């Protein structure tokens, strides 16, 4: 079952350290392919810690791992991921004449990958 949520890509320390080392090595790859999900949302969708999920936007689809965040830290319906090549695939090309694609408010459908 897929559910529509809002994905916020952003910076993290692990992603920062990873990109200094190399964007082609494990630390950066892991950091940019792990999405944080509200634990209550995880339970409702039957997602397991470290399990694979698919995120689909109007512009692309990616498969990443998920990890739980406490409900008071991450509101329900909100997802967080360190930005990188995977999140680029979900971004649209329209910038509303600003030069800035919508990068932190991506509407995605989240579903478990069996």
């Amino acid at each position, binding site marked *: 079952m897929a559910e529509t949520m809002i994905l916020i890509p952003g910076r993290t320390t692990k992603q920062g350290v990873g990109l200094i080392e190399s964007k082609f090595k494990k630390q950066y790859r892991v950091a940019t392919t792990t999405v944080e999900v509200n634990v209550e949302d995880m339970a409702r969708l039957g997602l397991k810690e470290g399990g694979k999920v698919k995120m689909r936007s109007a512009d692309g689809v990616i498969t990443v791992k998920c990890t739980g965040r406490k409900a008071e830290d991450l509101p329900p319906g909100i997802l967080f991921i360190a930005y*990188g090549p995977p999140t680029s695939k979900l971004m649209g090309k329209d910038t509303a004449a600003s030069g800035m694609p919508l990068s*932190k408010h991506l509407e995605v459908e989240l579903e478990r990958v069996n």
Partner: protein
Amino acid sequence: MSAATETKTEANTKTVENATCTFCGCLCDDMVLTVDVDAHKITKAKNACVLGKALFLSHEEEDRPFALIDGKPATLKEGVEEAAQILTNARFPMFYGMSDTTCEAQRQNVALVDMVGGTIDSTTSVCHGPTGMALQGVGESTATLGEIKNRADLVIYWGGNPAESLPRHFARYAVTAKGMYTPRRKKDRTIVNVDVRRTKSTPVADIFIQVKIGADFELLWALRALVKGRKVAPDIEKRTGVSLETMQDLVERMKNCRYGVLFFGMGLSMTRGRHFNAAAILSLASDLNEYTHFIATPMRGHGNVSGADMVVSWQTGYPFAVNFSRGYPKFNPGEFTATDMFARGDADAGLILAADPGSNFSQYAIDHMKKIPMIVLDPKLTHTAKLAKVAITTSHYGINTGGTAYRSDGVPIELRPCLESKYPSDEEVIRAIYKRVEQLLKAKKKTKSANNKRRKAA
């Protein structure tokens, strides 16, 4: 800022004091680097944060060819020649990046784009570009980070997570730093964090305000109304997730502080509302100056992204998204911004200086970059270098190359390199490309003129 000193401590070790870390916009210039000269490695980076330590201690000069053309090793001269040919023959080239290089290289890059009549844009456009647009519309009440450290007693972090992206921001400038009028550090300041989620920055805050996603503009506008003494309906909470009481409390704190600061991140500029969000927070700071001293300033990510704004502004009159097709600079975000030009398929060539759009632009833009001849200058192999026709390896600014970088508050800082490199600096490569393009354009003009004469004679 203080003068750099270099001391040789042992036969094979040297210490470089007051070096600058160029990872983020804090540009911390109090690094004490210990360098093992024989091993050509930095072994200690005193005062560096986790990101700075990674930058210095993991620095290794990769043994890469001076250039790659179509993925095959080439000499620097061959790389420069190929790059010059691409730029001479392009009709609508895009020059993009510049956030991780020196102002000296940026300046030369602007001269090059001017000569070929191309378009230049920096990583600002996908960072605080909307803030730049807002600044042009509503102005800015601003200050240096030093002034903030010494004076601010109310610090509000809005839509940013400096604990992870600018790790020394708290200790060096705004939370636990000892200032002239804030001698008791955090005890002399009230820290507020406004965000859609709790981040690693939230624990430093005395007050955390959780705004609903996509409601920053409404919250800022409601705060502006309250500052101006207008009535705000209690059901504002339904839209913003923040109660009227919380807003009123924040407004009282803002109006009654001695010196307030709003630091804002890409939670405002990269989300719905973009430049309207930035204009709202800048306007809130302006409104508050009716009551006290208040400033609003963006938190900048890359080491010298502020420098790119400065250099492009002083050379063209505009900070980013500048086109030279008509022989004079034209500014138009949306039209001349890199992600738009690539995603629409407008650019017929690209020069990427010290940035990696191949890893963070939309797939539409990346797909187009794969179709056109791209030139990349970078110390590392990046996603963009992998798709480039010409990839030139350059030295690392700040570590191998000196020059100037601008801190996020617009303060220029001189870089103090500590290791030599066999690779040229970005500035040297851009200068070489410039020189060769100049020759090729002159030859092209001469041929065109000769052809015209022949045609007329016939």
